[in-house]
């Protein structure tokens, strides 16, 4: 266990600059946008105040969030794309480049599955850190906005309201536990499938490449198939209740995740090649 924790620390340490960069970018864009919008609002209100014919309307932090979805969502999108690329890079960087660390990782005096688990845990820590930052940033955004806009025009907004105004936040920070488990469960399963595909591909060529392609294609058909089946309300045709069908589909995802882990461990132990 101690060895695994050390390996997780090692993986996090290697990504720290990119992680801090993503955090910095997100904070800068979202807080910067809030400051600029809030100052604009303040000026507008003050100008309206000077004109006795116009009655300035109330405003809350929900308005900038709702009217500038792209601006607030942009850094989040950058984080998601970076993490998605890192799902591949976290493995491929060990094989390519000036030094091939995969030799060392496969020769550590511990079960090889620890390498897999450490990379997975590191990715989850990155996702968790960025989500935690986003939550904190929403509070900061509200505080900044409220500090700039004159109190007399301010309308209070809850954190839940803020999340609900922007689709990106709705997906990123689901307010119900059910959706949280669903979104992140699906996300983690996709990461596990990609990890396993990479490890199969890193087996002996050309067999490894064919195996990886076949596995990735099979999993894509299966997992995308479940989403299509759900969207097409296939349960009616199968004479099942909607909740029964949902449980069956969730079961398929859980089995796919377990199979990916088993196959990934097996590939690391038996077929992966430097």
């Amino acid at each position, binding site marked *: 266990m101690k060895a695994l924790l050390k390996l997780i620390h090692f993986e996090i340490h290697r990504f720290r600059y990119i992680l801090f960069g993503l955090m910095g970018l997100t904070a800068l864009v979202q807080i910067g946008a809030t400051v600029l919008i809030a100052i604009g609002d303040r000026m507008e209100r003050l100008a309206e105040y000077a004109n006795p014919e116009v009655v300035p309307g109330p405003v809350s932090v929900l308005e900038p969030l709702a009217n500038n979805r792209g601006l607030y969502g942009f850094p989040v999108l950058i984080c998601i794309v970076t993490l998605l690329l890192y799902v591949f890079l976290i493995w491929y960087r060990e094989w390519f480049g000036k030094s091939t660390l995969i030799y060392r990782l496969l020769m550590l005096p*511990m079960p090889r599955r620890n390498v897999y688990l450490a990379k997975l845990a590191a990715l989850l820590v990155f996702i968790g850190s960025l989500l935690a930052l986003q939550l904190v940033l929403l509070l900061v955004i509200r505080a900044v906005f409220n500090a700039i806009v004159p109190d007399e025009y301010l309308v209070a907004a809850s954190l839940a309201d803020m999340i609900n105004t922007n689709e990106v936040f709705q997906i990123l920070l689901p307010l119900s536990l059910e959706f949280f488990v669903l979104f992140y469960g699906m996300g983690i399963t996709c990461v596990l499938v990609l990890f396993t595909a990479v490890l199969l591909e890193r087996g002996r060529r050309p067999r490894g490449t064919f195996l990886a392609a076949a596995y990735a294609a099979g999993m894509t058909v299966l997992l995308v198939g479940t989403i299509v089946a759900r969207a097409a309300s296939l349960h009616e045709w199968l004479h099942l209740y909607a909740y029964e069908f949902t449980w069956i589909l969730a079961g398929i995802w859980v089995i796919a995740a377990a199979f990916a882990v088993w196959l990934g461990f097996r590939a690391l132990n038996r077929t992966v090649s430097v």
Partner: protein
Amino acid sequence: MIEVRDLRLRYFRKPVLKGVSFTMEKGQITCLAGLNGAGKSTVLKAIMGLVPLDGGSIRIDGTETALHLAGNRRDLNRFRVQHVSYIPDRLAMPPSMKLWEALRFMDDFYPGIWNGGKAKEMMTFFGLGERERIANLSKGNAAKFNLVLGLALDTPYVLMDEPFSGIDLFSREAIAEVFSNSWLEDRGVLITTHEIQEVEHLIDKMVMLKDGVVAMAFDSEEMRLAENKSIIDVMREVYRP
């Protein structure tokens, strides 16, 4: 003793190893020779479980370690690493690390196997500064540091893949000196090299790979006494068309 038996491996349908068998023993330096692409490095990687095999067996002090036969054993990596240290032909550490960080990494991840005192001794011997970054090391210094990382692991066997490859004369001399001092005493060494002349006088046993099989294996001293031939003489006979 490490016993390699009937190793077979295909790469893109082309057979690379067609049944390689040999043994190496503690206290001896065994040289695995062969032309480029003969499969020397592959054999070393197979011993460390870094390439999957099509067949064959690898026994380390009597324990089977070939991936296709023992890959499910949870303690396989630990067992292998406790017995064999592999020094690949490149430095397997992140280039962004400083040397002291790499030494600390080894100390952290190889408890009970890593010998920090020996590493320090070797760093001084090679004149390596701990504050340097791996990315900034010259090829010669990278090869020396690679040796430090491999030889400071207290294992009965050491595998070295081309330790003299592409480095200057003085670095080669410094590395060659390692073979005649106490760091390799009583350890079984398996080395692949094209610079045979650097270590010829130290080699106890030669294993010559050709066309995916062991074309010839002999005790170098016996060969000298019985047939009055040096290792290079025999290599000429085996490899020259």
